[in-house]
């Protein structure tokens, strides 16, 4: 029985957060993805009462191969993920982007460009006199008396 509890002194370690803040976004995402997938596989195996042996059978692989996959010794390819999902009978990775999502995302951007152009000039597709391409074209224009081969559009 504990008669007198030892007081544990909390200590801040700001350098921990500094190291985290310095981590590139793709590394943070890699860790997040790794944990999410590992967690999902573990939860599903537990929920379905599956052992590694059952997963191996479902994926058509040996237990040793499954151990390597789950143990991180092999990169998870899309094909492996597909086999895992079939063996577990559940989706592990979802890609929620559809054409409709892209359309919905693009619409606001196009609208804002159109409104900016509408505010600047009556014909948004006409180059101004300051346009360097147009000016260079103008210099070469009647050198040989022929029509210029490059057209400004």
């Amino acid at each position, binding site marked *: 029985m504990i008669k007198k509890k030892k007081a544990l002194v909390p200590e801040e370690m700001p350098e921990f957060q500094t*190291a*985290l803040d310095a*981590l590139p976004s793709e590394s943070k995402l890699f860790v997040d993805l790794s944990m999410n997938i590992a967690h999902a596989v573990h939860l599903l195996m537990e929920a379905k009462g599956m052992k590694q042996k059952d997963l191996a059978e479902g994926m058509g692989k040996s237990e040793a191969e499954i151990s390597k996959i789950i143990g991180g010794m092999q990169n998870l390819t899309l094909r492996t993920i597909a086999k895992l999902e079939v063996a577990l009978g559940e989706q592990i990775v979802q890609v929620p982007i559809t054409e409709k999502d892209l359309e919905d995302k693009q619409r606001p951007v196009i609208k804002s460009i159109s409104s900016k152009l509408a505010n600047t000039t009556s014909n948004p597709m006409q180059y101004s006199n300051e346009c360097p391409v147009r000016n260079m074209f103008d210099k070469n224009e009647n050198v040989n008396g022929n029509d210029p081969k490059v057209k400004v559009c």
Partner: protein
Amino acid sequence: MQYYTVRFKGKELYEFRDFHIRMGAVESNRLELGEIYQYIQNIGEKFGALPHHFRAEDAAEALPPSYHQFIETDETNDFGIRLYCIRLSRSVVILLNGDRKTAQKVKDCKNCFPHFDRARRIALKINQLILDGLLKIDEATKTIDFEDDEELSI
């Protein structure tokens, strides 16, 4: 979730701080170190200290988890950085020390073996103290309760 660390008698630094300073001093370690810290943060904030998010190391544990895909280096004997720790419950973890593993088996790695061995002995000692009623994990407050005048000797 609550993380703890320890300080050995005669040593100035806490074990986890010692790990951070030594590993962080080498530029090429910083990316791996950051990734280990991201695991620590995610375990603390999102998943809890579940066994499958740790590497089993005898009576103790280590990070990164065994499913972590280590960035390969040009070194032939490079198995990545290990941070040894002790998972006391889903809410309480003791972070200890570690180094870069340079052999398949930890007993053959001169960098990691001392840290692994200490972690293992601390874990065994804590288990014994729990069985003897001299150490208790309070899940509600996420604290480790043990006698004020007790020193953990390994």
